[in-house]
C-alpha cells in the first residue's frame, strides 16, 4: 500500500546532501578554527605564566607581562557595555515595538544602524579621536575608547535584539494588553525576557567585536601601557598590545600569541557569564 508512496528520490537525496553539507561545514569551520587556535597555542602557550598575567610589560612588551592591558581592556569593555547596552536595548525596543507610531523615525534609525555597521573601524577611530577626545575634551582616555567602541557595537546589539523582539509571539502582547498591563511592564517583564536569545547573540558578538578591536582604539584609548588610575587615563587594550607586538616590535610574535590566547580565554569566560546572567534574568523575571 502506501509504502509505494515513499518520498521521491530527489527529496531524500536533498536531505542527505543537506546533512552532508552541514557535517562538512562543521568539520571545515572546526578545522579552520583549530588551525588558527593551534598556531596561537603553539606559539603562545609557552609564554603564559602567572607572572605574565600579573606583571607590567617591559622592553616594549618583549618582557614582563600584560596586567595593565588586562585592566584597561576590562575597563574599556565596561564603559562600552555600560553605554551600548541601554542605548542598544532602548533603540531596539523603539524599532521593534513602536514602529507603527514612530514609523519615520524607526525606518531612519534602522537604516542608520545598518550604515553604522559598515563604517570601517579606522573611521570610527578617527571620528572618536575628533569627537570624544577633542570636541568633548576627553583626550586619550579609557572613556573615549569605550564610547567609540559603544558606537561600533551598537548596530550589532540593536539589530539582534530587535530581531529577537520581533520573533516574540504576538499572543504575549495580546495577553498583556488584555490585562491592562502597562507597556513598561509588558516589555520588561514579558517581551524582553522572551527575546533573550537574540539579546545574547548580540551581546556575544558585540563583546567579541569590542575585545578584538584595534584601529578604533589606537586613536582613542591610546597606547600607554601603564595601569590606568581613572577612566580619564589612557590605557592600552589587549588587542592593541597584540597588534603592536606582532606588527611593530621585532621579536614580539610569541608574546603576541600569548596575549591573544589570554584574550580568547577572557572572551570565553565573558560569554559564559553573559549567557548565564541573561538566562537567570529570563527565568527570574
Amino acid at each position, binding site marked *: 500500500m502506501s509504502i509505494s508512496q515513499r518520498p521521491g528520490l530527489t527529496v531524500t537525496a536533498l536531505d542527505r546532501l543537506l546533512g552532508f553539507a552541514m557535517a562538512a561545514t562543521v568539520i571545515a569551520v572546526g578545522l579552520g578554527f583549530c588551525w588558527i587556535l593551534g598556531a596561537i597555542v603553539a606559539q603562545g602557550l609557552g609564554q603564559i605564566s602567572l607572572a605574565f598575567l600579573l606583571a607590567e610589560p*617591559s*622592553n*616594549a*612588551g618583549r618582557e614582563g607581562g600584560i596586567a595593565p592591558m588586562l585592566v584597561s581592556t576590562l575597563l574599556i569593555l565596561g564603559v562600552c557595555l555600560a553605554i551600548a547596552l541601554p542605548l542598544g536595548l532602548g533603540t531596539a525596543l523603539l524599532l521593534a515595538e513602536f514602529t507603527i507610531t514612530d514609523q519615520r523615525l524607526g525606518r531612519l534609525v534602522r537604516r542608520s544602524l545598518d550604515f553604522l555597521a559598515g563604517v570601517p573601524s579606522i573611521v570610527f577611530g578617527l571620528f572618536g*579621536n575628533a569627537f570624544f577626545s*577633542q570636541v568633548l575634551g576627553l*583626550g*586619550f582616555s579609557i572613556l573615549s575608547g569605550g564610547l567609540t567602541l559603544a558606537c561600533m557595537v551598537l548596530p550589532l546589539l540593536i539589530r539582534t535584539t530587535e530581531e529577537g523582539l520581533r520573533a516574540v509571539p504576538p499572543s504575549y502582547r495580546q495577553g498583556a494588553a488584555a490585562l491592562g498591563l502597562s507597556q513598561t511592564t509588558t516589555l520588561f517583564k514579558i517581551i524582553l525576557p522572551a527575546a533573550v536569545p537574540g539579546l545574547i547573540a548580540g551581546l556575544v558578538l558585540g563583546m567579541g567585536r569590542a575585545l578584538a578591536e584595534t584601529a578604533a582604539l*589606537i*586613536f582613542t584609548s*591610546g*597606547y*600607554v*601601557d601603564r595601569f590606568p588610575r581613572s577612566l580619564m587615563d*589612557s590605557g592600552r587594550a589587549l588587542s592593541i598590545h597584540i597588534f*603592536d607586538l*606582532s*606588527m*611593530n*616590535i*621585532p*621579536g614580539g610574535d610569541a608574546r603576541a600569541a600569548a596575549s591573544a590566547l589570554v584574550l580568547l580565554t577572557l572572551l570565553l569566560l565573558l560569554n559564559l557569564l553573559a549567557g548565564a546572567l541573561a538566562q537567570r534574568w529570563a527565568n527570574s523575571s
Partner: protein
Amino acid sequence: AKPPQAANSEGIKLQGNIVLTGSSTVAPLAIEMGKRFEEQHPQVRVDVQTGGSSRGLADTRNGSADIGMVSRSLKPEEGDLTAHAIARDGIAIILHSENPVAELSPEQVVDIYQGQLTQWSDVAGGPTSPITVVNKAEGRSTLDVFLKHFDLKNSEIQAQVIIGDNEQGIKTVTGNPNAIGYVSIGAAEHSIGRGEPLKMLPLDGVSPSTTTLQDGTFPLARTLNLVTQGASEPTAQAFLQFAQSPQVQDLIEQQNFVPIESAPLAPSTP
C-alpha cells in the same frame, strides 16, 4: 648599566604630564625612555600615543601633544617645527634566505622595482622564478628614503605587494622565497637573529648592520625625530634633553636603532 638617579640634578622638581604622539616606529622607544624618565622624576608622567608621523605633526601643531614623534626628517614646509634627532634607523634590502642571489647592483634594484627585471634568472645566480616585488605604501618614510636613494618615482614602481609596517614586510619575504623588499635594519637583524629565513643584501658593497650604520658607511638611513613647536615647557624640555642624552643609549640599542652620537660614548656617570 643603569644610569644613577641623580643624572638630572639641577635641583628643580619637575612635574606634570608630557604627551607624545606620532610615529609607531618611535613609540616603543619613547615608551621605554618615558619609563626611565619617570623613574628619575616621580612627579612626571609621560604618555606615549601612536597614530603615525602625520598625527605627531598635527598634534604638535594644534597643541594636543607636547612632543611629536616623526620617523623622518622634517620637510621644508614643516619649518614651523623644531626637530630633535634621537636615533637613526637604516633600511636594508631583504631576500628570502633560500634565494641564492647574494648581491644586487643599484641598477638591478632599480630595474627590478621598475618592472624591467621580472625573473630571478635574469640576475646572476638567480633561480628560475618570477620576482615578487614588495614595496612600501605611499607616504611612509622608509619609502621616501628608498626612492630618494635610488632616484625613483613611486609611480614608476611595479610592485606585487604593498606593505605597511616592517614586520609585515619581513613576514611577506619569509613566506615567499621569490620576494624582494626593504625594511628597517634593526627589525631585519632581530629576525635573522631569531633564525628566520631572511637575509640582507649589501648596498654599494657595504653590508647593512647597526654597526655600519653607526659608523656612517651604510648609505640608506633615516633619522628618528622628536618635534616641538616654539618654546616648550620645562618638563618637556627636560625630556627632550634626556632623550638625546647618553642615558638612553642602551634603550635605543635595545629597540634595534642606532644612537645619534656615534662619536665617543659619554661616560654614564656624572
